[in-house]
Protein backbone atom coordinates (compact mmCIF):
# COMPACT_ATOMS: atom_id res chain seq x y z
CA UNK A 1 0.00 0.00 0.00
CA UNK A 2 1.48 3.29 -1.07
CA UNK A 3 -0.53 6.19 0.27
CA UNK A 4 1.70 8.94 -1.06
CA UNK A 5 1.52 7.56 -4.58
CA UNK A 6 -2.25 7.14 -4.35
CA UNK A 7 -2.56 10.74 -3.17
CA UNK A 8 -0.62 12.05 -6.16
CA UNK A 9 -2.55 9.81 -8.55
CA UNK A 10 -5.96 10.85 -7.26
CA UNK A 11 -5.25 14.55 -7.27
CA UNK A 12 -3.05 14.98 -10.33
CA UNK A 13 -1.65 12.22 -12.48
CA UNK A 14 -4.79 10.07 -12.52
CA UNK A 15 -7.38 12.71 -11.69
CA UNK A 16 -10.87 11.33 -12.42
CA UNK A 17 -12.09 14.31 -14.45
CA UNK A 18 -8.98 15.79 -16.00
CA UNK A 19 -7.08 12.61 -16.89
CA UNK A 20 -9.54 9.71 -16.80
CA UNK A 21 -12.18 11.96 -18.42
CA UNK A 22 -15.13 10.44 -16.55
CA UNK A 23 -17.99 11.88 -14.56
CA UNK A 24 -18.27 15.02 -16.61
CA UNK A 25 -22.03 15.63 -16.70
CA UNK A 26 -22.30 16.79 -13.11
CA UNK A 27 -18.94 18.55 -13.31
CA UNK A 28 -20.20 20.89 -15.99
CA UNK A 29 -23.73 21.22 -14.70
CA UNK A 30 -23.35 22.22 -11.06
CA UNK A 31 -20.16 24.29 -11.00
CA UNK A 32 -21.92 27.65 -10.91
CA UNK A 33 -21.25 28.60 -7.28
CA UNK A 34 -18.66 27.42 -4.78
CA UNK A 35 -21.45 26.27 -2.45
CA UNK A 36 -22.71 23.77 -5.04
CA UNK A 37 -19.23 22.63 -6.02
CA UNK A 38 -18.04 21.87 -2.50
CA UNK A 39 -21.35 20.21 -1.61
CA UNK A 40 -21.32 17.98 -4.68
CA UNK A 41 -17.62 17.16 -4.27
CA UNK A 42 -18.03 16.10 -0.65
CA UNK A 43 -21.16 14.05 -1.44
CA UNK A 44 -19.27 12.15 -4.14
CA UNK A 45 -16.27 11.73 -1.82
CA UNK A 46 -18.41 10.17 0.91
CA UNK A 47 -20.32 7.89 -1.46
CA UNK A 48 -17.16 6.86 -3.29
CA UNK A 49 -15.33 6.00 -0.08
CA UNK A 50 -18.24 3.97 1.33
CA UNK A 51 -18.77 2.09 -1.93
CA UNK A 52 -15.06 1.39 -2.31
CA UNK A 53 -14.86 -0.09 1.19
CA UNK A 54 -17.95 -2.26 0.76
CA UNK A 55 -17.03 -3.47 -2.71
CA UNK A 56 -13.49 -4.38 -1.72
CA UNK A 57 -14.73 -6.06 1.46
CA UNK A 58 -17.01 -8.40 -0.48
CA UNK A 59 -14.87 -8.66 -3.60
CA UNK A 60 -14.13 -12.35 -3.03
CA UNK A 61 -17.75 -13.47 -2.73
CA UNK A 62 -19.18 -11.53 -5.69
CA UNK A 63 -19.83 -13.80 -8.67
CA UNK A 64 -18.05 -12.31 -11.66
CA UNK A 65 -21.05 -12.49 -14.02
CA UNK A 66 -23.36 -10.25 -12.03
CA UNK A 67 -20.79 -7.97 -10.41
CA UNK A 68 -21.99 -4.84 -12.23
CA UNK A 69 -25.55 -5.31 -11.02
CA UNK A 70 -24.26 -5.75 -7.45
CA UNK A 71 -22.10 -2.63 -7.73
CA UNK A 72 -25.07 -0.61 -8.96
CA UNK A 73 -27.25 -1.76 -6.08
CA UNK A 74 -24.54 -0.90 -3.51
CA UNK A 75 -23.98 2.53 -5.08
CA UNK A 76 -27.71 3.25 -5.31
CA UNK A 77 -28.06 2.37 -1.64
CA UNK A 78 -25.39 4.84 -0.52
CA UNK A 79 -26.65 7.53 -2.90
CA UNK A 80 -30.13 7.21 -1.44
CA UNK A 81 -28.70 7.57 2.08
CA UNK A 82 -26.79 10.74 1.16
CA UNK A 83 -29.75 12.11 -0.78
CA UNK A 84 -32.10 11.69 2.18
CA UNK A 85 -29.53 13.11 4.63
CA UNK A 86 -29.04 16.20 2.46
CA UNK A 87 -32.80 16.67 2.12
CA UNK A 88 -33.13 16.53 5.91
CA UNK A 89 -30.15 18.62 7.04
CA UNK A 90 -29.04 20.85 4.12
CA UNK A 91 -32.23 21.33 2.06
CA UNK A 92 -30.70 24.32 0.23
CA UNK A 93 -27.95 22.15 -1.21
CA UNK A 94 -30.42 19.43 -2.10
CA UNK A 95 -32.55 22.01 -3.99
CA UNK A 96 -29.56 23.53 -5.76
CA UNK A 97 -28.13 20.22 -6.97
CA UNK A 98 -31.58 18.81 -7.71
CA UNK A 99 -31.56 15.76 -9.90
CA UNK A 100 -27.77 15.52 -9.90
CA UNK A 101 -27.60 13.96 -6.42
CA UNK A 102 -29.60 10.83 -7.37
CA UNK A 103 -27.70 10.84 -10.66
CA UNK A 104 -24.47 10.07 -8.78
CA UNK A 105 -25.66 6.47 -9.20
CA UNK A 106 -24.72 6.56 -12.86
CA UNK A 107 -21.61 8.67 -12.30
CA UNK A 108 -18.84 6.73 -14.01
CA UNK A 109 -16.29 7.64 -11.33
CA UNK A 110 -17.81 5.39 -8.71
CA UNK A 111 -18.57 2.36 -10.83
CA UNK A 112 -15.24 2.90 -12.60
CA UNK A 113 -13.25 2.78 -9.35
CA UNK A 114 -15.21 -0.26 -8.16
CA UNK A 115 -14.42 -2.08 -11.39
CA UNK A 116 -10.83 -0.90 -11.88
CA UNK A 117 -9.48 -0.66 -8.34
CA UNK A 118 -11.54 -2.17 -5.52
CA UNK A 119 -11.94 -5.56 -7.17
CA UNK A 120 -8.21 -6.17 -6.93
CA UNK A 121 -7.18 -4.33 -3.77
CA UNK A 122 -7.55 -4.56 -0.01
CA UNK A 123 -10.11 -2.66 2.04
CA UNK A 124 -7.49 -0.20 3.33
CA UNK A 125 -6.12 0.66 -0.08
CA UNK A 126 -9.66 1.05 -1.46
CA UNK A 127 -10.57 3.36 1.43
CA UNK A 128 -7.68 5.72 0.66
CA UNK A 129 -8.36 5.43 -3.06
CA UNK A 130 -11.93 6.59 -2.44
CA UNK A 131 -10.77 9.55 -0.37
CA UNK A 132 -8.06 10.67 -2.79
CA UNK A 133 -10.12 10.19 -5.94
CA UNK A 134 -12.96 12.04 -4.23
CA UNK A 135 -10.57 14.84 -3.27
CA UNK A 136 -9.31 15.01 -6.86
CA UNK A 137 -12.90 15.36 -8.05
CA UNK A 138 -13.67 18.02 -5.44
CA UNK A 139 -10.54 19.93 -6.40
CA UNK A 140 -11.62 20.10 -10.04
CA UNK A 141 -15.10 21.22 -9.03
CA UNK A 142 -13.65 23.96 -6.81
CA UNK A 143 -11.33 25.25 -9.52
CA UNK A 144 -14.19 25.35 -12.03
CA UNK A 145 -16.59 26.99 -9.58
CA UNK A 146 -14.12 29.70 -8.60
CA UNK A 147 -13.33 30.47 -12.22
CA UNK A 148 -16.91 30.50 -13.47
CA UNK A 149 -18.21 32.46 -10.51
CA UNK A 150 -15.46 35.06 -10.74
CA UNK A 151 -15.67 35.60 -14.48
CA UNK A 152 -19.44 35.27 -14.57
CA UNK A 153 -20.49 37.53 -11.75
CA UNK A 154 -17.33 38.94 -10.18
CA UNK A 155 -17.85 37.07 -6.93
CA UNK A 156 -15.96 34.59 -4.83
CA UNK A 157 -17.39 31.90 -2.58
CA UNK A 158 -21.09 32.56 -3.08
CA UNK A 159 -23.10 30.94 -0.32
CA UNK A 160 -20.20 29.11 1.24
CA UNK A 161 -18.61 32.07 3.03
CA UNK A 162 -21.95 33.19 4.43
CA UNK A 163 -22.61 29.63 5.50
CA UNK A 164 -19.29 29.52 7.34
CA UNK A 165 -20.02 32.82 9.05
CA UNK A 166 -23.49 31.60 9.95
CA UNK A 167 -25.33 34.49 8.25
CA UNK A 168 -27.44 32.45 5.87
CA UNK A 169 -27.95 28.75 5.71
CA UNK A 170 -29.60 28.60 2.31
CA UNK A 171 -26.54 28.97 0.10
CA UNK A 172 -27.81 32.11 -1.60
CA UNK A 173 -25.39 34.55 0.03
CA UNK A 174 -23.47 36.83 -2.28
CA UNK A 175 -19.98 35.93 -1.09
CA UNK A 176 -17.23 38.48 -1.69
CA UNK A 177 -17.77 40.85 -4.59
CA UNK A 178 -14.39 41.24 -6.30
CA UNK A 179 -15.54 43.45 -9.17
CA UNK A 180 -18.98 44.88 -9.93
CA UNK A 181 -21.44 42.34 -11.27
CA UNK A 182 -22.29 44.44 -14.31
CA UNK A 183 -18.77 43.86 -15.68
CA UNK A 184 -19.07 40.08 -15.40
CA UNK A 185 -19.55 37.87 -18.44
CA UNK A 186 -22.73 36.23 -17.23
CA UNK A 187 -22.49 33.72 -20.07
CA UNK A 188 -19.87 31.85 -18.03
CA UNK A 189 -22.52 30.78 -15.54
CA UNK A 190 -24.66 29.35 -18.37
CA UNK A 191 -24.09 25.94 -20.03
CA UNK A 192 -21.73 27.54 -22.54
CA UNK A 193 -19.36 28.42 -19.70
CA UNK A 194 -19.47 24.87 -18.36
CA UNK A 195 -18.28 23.30 -21.60
CA UNK A 196 -15.69 26.01 -22.22
CA UNK A 197 -14.20 25.99 -18.71
CA UNK A 198 -13.82 22.21 -18.63
CA UNK A 199 -12.29 22.24 -22.12
CA UNK A 200 -9.75 24.87 -21.13
CA UNK A 201 -8.96 23.11 -17.85
CA UNK A 202 -8.27 19.77 -19.57
CA UNK A 203 -6.15 21.58 -22.16
CA UNK A 204 -4.06 23.18 -19.40
CA UNK A 205 -3.69 19.79 -17.74
CA UNK A 206 -2.56 18.12 -20.97
CA UNK A 207 -0.08 20.94 -21.52
CA UNK A 208 1.35 20.55 -18.01
CA UNK A 209 1.55 16.74 -18.20
CA UNK A 210 3.27 16.87 -21.59
CA UNK A 211 5.75 19.43 -20.33
CA UNK A 212 6.66 17.39 -17.27
CA UNK A 213 6.98 14.26 -19.41
CA UNK A 214 9.35 16.11 -21.72
CA UNK A 215 11.38 17.37 -18.78
CA UNK A 216 11.75 13.85 -17.44
CA UNK A 217 12.80 12.63 -20.85
CA UNK A 218 15.45 15.33 -21.09
CA UNK A 219 16.68 14.51 -17.61
CA UNK A 220 16.93 10.83 -18.46
CA UNK A 221 18.80 11.67 -21.63
CA UNK A 222 21.27 13.88 -19.77
CA UNK A 223 21.92 11.17 -17.22
CA UNK A 224 22.53 8.73 -20.01
CA UNK A 225 25.03 11.09 -21.61
CA UNK A 226 26.81 11.61 -18.31
CA UNK A 227 27.06 7.88 -17.83
CA UNK A 228 28.50 7.43 -21.26
Amino acid at each position, binding site marked *: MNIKKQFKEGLITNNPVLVQ*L*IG*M*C*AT*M*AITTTLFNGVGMGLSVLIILTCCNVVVSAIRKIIPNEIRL*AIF*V*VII*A*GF*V*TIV*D*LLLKAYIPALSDAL*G*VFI*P*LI*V*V*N*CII*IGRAEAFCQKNTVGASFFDGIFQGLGYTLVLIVMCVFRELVGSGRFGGGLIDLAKGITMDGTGAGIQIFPETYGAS*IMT*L*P*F*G*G*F*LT*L*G*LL*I*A*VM*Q*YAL*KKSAKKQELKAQEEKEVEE
Partner: protein
Amino acid sequence: MLTNIISISLGAILINNFIFSQFLGCCPFLGCSSKVETATGMGLAVVFVMGLASAICWVINEYLLVALHLEFLQTLAFILVIAALVQFVEMFLKKSVPSLYSALGIYLPLITTNCAVLGVVLLNVQNNYNFLESLVYGITGGLGFMLAIVLFASVRERIEFSDYPECFEGFPICLVSAALLALAFMGFSGMKIF
Protein backbone atom coordinates in the same frame (compact mmCIF):
# COMPACT_ATOMS: atom_id res chain seq x y z
CA MET B 1 -53.90 18.85 -23.24
CA LEU B 2 -52.54 19.13 -26.76
CA THR B 3 -50.84 22.45 -26.09
CA ASN B 4 -49.29 20.90 -23.01
CA ILE B 5 -47.86 18.03 -25.04
CA ILE B 6 -46.54 20.40 -27.71
CA SER B 7 -44.89 22.63 -25.14
CA ILE B 8 -43.27 19.63 -23.43
CA SER B 9 -41.92 18.31 -26.72
CA LEU B 10 -40.57 21.63 -27.96
CA GLY B 11 -39.08 22.26 -24.54
CA ALA B 12 -37.33 18.90 -24.43
CA ILE B 13 -35.99 19.07 -27.98
CA LEU B 14 -34.92 22.68 -28.26
CA ILE B 15 -35.30 24.95 -25.26
CA ASN B 16 -34.20 22.66 -22.46
CA ASN B 17 -32.15 20.33 -24.61
CA PHE B 18 -30.85 17.45 -22.49
CA ILE B 19 -27.24 17.99 -23.50
CA PHE B 20 -26.89 21.70 -24.08
CA SER B 21 -28.90 23.08 -21.23
CA GLN B 22 -29.24 20.30 -18.67
CA PHE B 23 -25.92 18.47 -19.12
CA LEU B 24 -27.59 15.07 -19.01
CA GLY B 25 -25.91 12.33 -21.01
CA CYS B 26 -22.62 14.08 -21.67
CA CYS B 27 -20.51 10.91 -21.44
CA PRO B 28 -21.99 9.13 -24.50
CA PHE B 29 -22.35 12.54 -26.14
CA LEU B 30 -18.58 12.99 -26.03
CA GLY B 31 -17.69 9.31 -26.28
CA CYS B 32 -19.79 8.11 -29.23
CA SER B 33 -19.74 11.14 -31.47
CA SER B 34 -16.66 10.65 -33.60
CA LYS B 35 -18.72 9.49 -36.61
CA VAL B 36 -22.17 10.54 -37.79
CA GLU B 37 -23.34 6.93 -38.30
CA THR B 38 -22.52 5.71 -34.79
CA ALA B 39 -23.97 8.92 -33.40
CA THR B 40 -27.24 8.29 -35.23
CA GLY B 41 -27.37 4.69 -33.98
CA MET B 42 -26.68 5.79 -30.42
CA GLY B 43 -29.32 8.50 -30.72
CA LEU B 44 -31.95 6.06 -31.96
CA ALA B 45 -31.19 3.59 -29.19
CA VAL B 46 -31.44 6.34 -26.59
CA VAL B 47 -34.80 7.56 -27.97
CA PHE B 48 -36.14 4.02 -27.74
CA VAL B 49 -34.84 3.27 -24.24
CA MET B 50 -35.80 6.68 -22.85
CA GLY B 51 -39.36 6.38 -24.11
CA LEU B 52 -39.76 2.85 -22.80
CA ALA B 53 -38.08 3.63 -19.46
CA SER B 54 -40.30 6.68 -18.91
CA ALA B 55 -43.44 4.62 -19.47
CA ILE B 56 -42.42 1.61 -17.36
CA CYS B 57 -40.95 3.65 -14.50
CA TRP B 58 -44.08 5.82 -14.38
CA VAL B 59 -46.22 2.72 -13.92
CA ILE B 60 -43.89 1.27 -11.29
CA ASN B 61 -43.66 4.56 -9.42
CA GLU B 62 -47.41 5.16 -9.42
CA TYR B 63 -48.73 1.69 -8.66
CA LEU B 64 -45.89 0.20 -6.63
CA LEU B 65 -43.74 2.79 -4.91
CA VAL B 66 -46.30 5.51 -4.20
CA ALA B 67 -49.03 3.01 -3.41
CA LEU B 68 -46.83 1.24 -0.85
CA HIS B 69 -45.23 4.50 0.43
CA LEU B 70 -41.80 3.40 -0.70
CA GLU B 71 -40.82 6.64 -2.45
CA PHE B 72 -37.38 6.58 -0.87
CA LEU B 73 -36.54 3.56 -3.01
CA GLN B 74 -37.10 5.49 -6.25
CA THR B 75 -33.45 5.82 -7.28
CA LEU B 76 -32.73 2.18 -6.56
CA ALA B 77 -35.88 0.88 -8.26
CA PHE B 78 -35.44 3.05 -11.36
CA ILE B 79 -31.83 2.10 -12.00
CA LEU B 80 -32.71 -1.59 -11.69
CA VAL B 81 -35.64 -1.16 -14.08
CA ILE B 82 -33.41 0.63 -16.58
CA ALA B 83 -30.67 -2.01 -16.33
CA ALA B 84 -33.19 -4.82 -16.81
CA LEU B 85 -34.87 -2.95 -19.65
CA VAL B 86 -31.62 -2.41 -21.52
CA GLN B 87 -30.75 -6.08 -21.10
CA PHE B 88 -34.20 -7.06 -22.37
CA VAL B 89 -34.00 -4.72 -25.37
CA GLU B 90 -30.58 -6.14 -26.16
CA MET B 91 -31.90 -9.71 -26.12
CA PHE B 92 -34.97 -8.78 -28.16
CA LEU B 93 -32.94 -6.97 -30.83
CA LYS B 94 -30.43 -9.81 -31.00
CA LYS B 95 -33.23 -12.27 -31.75
CA SER B 96 -35.51 -10.28 -34.04
CA VAL B 97 -33.54 -7.37 -35.58
CA PRO B 98 -29.95 -8.63 -35.71
CA SER B 99 -28.91 -5.93 -38.20
CA LEU B 100 -29.76 -3.11 -35.80
CA TYR B 101 -28.21 -5.08 -32.95
CA SER B 102 -24.87 -5.38 -34.67
CA ALA B 103 -24.99 -1.73 -35.73
CA LEU B 104 -25.42 -0.56 -32.15
CA GLY B 105 -22.85 -2.95 -30.75
CA ILE B 106 -21.27 -1.93 -27.48
CA TYR B 107 -23.36 1.23 -27.17
CA LEU B 108 -26.49 -0.66 -26.25
CA PRO B 109 -25.36 -1.97 -22.82
CA LEU B 110 -23.71 1.38 -22.15
CA ILE B 111 -27.09 3.11 -22.21
CA THR B 112 -27.66 1.81 -18.68
CA THR B 113 -25.13 4.30 -17.37
CA ASN B 114 -26.37 7.14 -19.55
CA CYS B 115 -27.53 9.72 -17.05
CA ALA B 116 -30.08 11.10 -19.52
CA VAL B 117 -32.15 7.93 -19.09
CA LEU B 118 -32.19 7.96 -15.29
CA GLY B 119 -32.46 11.74 -15.45
CA VAL B 120 -35.62 11.76 -17.55
CA VAL B 121 -37.29 9.25 -15.23
CA LEU B 122 -36.42 11.30 -12.14
CA LEU B 123 -37.51 14.53 -13.82
CA ASN B 124 -40.86 12.93 -14.70
CA VAL B 125 -41.44 12.26 -11.02
CA GLN B 126 -40.19 15.69 -10.01
CA ASN B 127 -42.47 17.46 -12.49
CA ASN B 128 -45.51 15.34 -11.57
CA TYR B 129 -46.13 14.36 -15.18
CA ASN B 130 -48.98 11.98 -15.96
CA PHE B 131 -48.48 8.86 -18.05
CA LEU B 132 -48.86 10.48 -21.45
CA GLU B 133 -46.72 13.49 -20.52
CA SER B 134 -43.99 11.19 -19.17
CA LEU B 135 -43.98 9.16 -22.34
CA VAL B 136 -43.82 12.28 -24.53
CA TYR B 137 -41.09 13.81 -22.38
CA GLY B 138 -39.07 10.59 -22.60
CA ILE B 139 -39.32 10.29 -26.38
CA THR B 140 -38.78 13.96 -27.17
CA GLY B 141 -35.95 14.18 -24.65
CA GLY B 142 -34.33 11.32 -26.55
CA LEU B 143 -34.95 13.14 -29.83
CA GLY B 144 -33.25 16.22 -28.38
CA PHE B 145 -30.30 14.06 -27.40
CA MET B 146 -30.17 12.60 -30.91
CA LEU B 147 -30.30 16.04 -32.52
CA ALA B 148 -27.44 17.20 -30.32
CA ILE B 149 -25.22 14.16 -30.85
CA VAL B 150 -25.72 14.07 -34.64
CA LEU B 151 -24.99 17.79 -34.98
CA PHE B 152 -21.94 17.42 -32.79
CA ALA B 153 -20.67 14.37 -34.69
CA SER B 154 -20.76 16.28 -37.96
CA VAL B 155 -18.84 19.11 -36.31
CA ARG B 156 -16.27 16.66 -34.97
CA GLU B 157 -15.70 15.09 -38.38
CA ARG B 158 -14.56 18.48 -39.57
CA ILE B 159 -12.43 19.21 -36.51
CA GLU B 160 -10.20 16.29 -37.44
CA PHE B 161 -8.93 18.18 -40.47
CA SER B 162 -8.46 21.51 -38.78
CA ASP B 163 -5.45 23.05 -37.14
CA TYR B 164 -5.54 23.66 -33.40
CA PRO B 165 -3.01 24.02 -30.57
CA GLU B 166 -1.34 20.77 -29.61
CA CYS B 167 -2.49 20.78 -26.00
CA PHE B 168 -6.14 20.97 -27.15
CA GLU B 169 -5.86 17.59 -28.83
CA GLY B 170 -8.67 15.14 -28.10
CA PHE B 171 -11.27 16.12 -25.55
CA PRO B 172 -10.55 19.83 -24.97
CA ILE B 173 -11.18 20.90 -28.56
CA CYS B 174 -14.37 18.84 -28.56
CA LEU B 175 -15.55 20.52 -25.38
CA VAL B 176 -14.82 23.95 -26.80
CA SER B 177 -16.81 23.19 -29.94
CA ALA B 178 -19.61 21.76 -27.78
CA ALA B 179 -19.56 25.08 -25.94
CA LEU B 180 -20.12 26.91 -29.23
CA LEU B 181 -23.02 24.57 -30.05
CA ALA B 182 -24.47 25.23 -26.60
CA LEU B 183 -24.20 28.92 -27.38
CA ALA B 184 -26.26 28.35 -30.52
CA PHE B 185 -28.89 26.43 -28.55
CA MET B 186 -29.03 29.28 -26.05
CA GLY B 187 -30.86 31.21 -28.74
CA PHE B 188 -33.92 29.09 -28.02
CA SER B 189 -33.91 29.85 -24.32
CA GLY B 190 -35.87 33.06 -24.67
CA MET B 191 -38.65 31.28 -26.51
CA LYS B 192 -41.92 30.87 -24.71
CA ILE B 193 -44.74 28.68 -25.94
CA PHE B 194 -48.36 29.52 -25.33
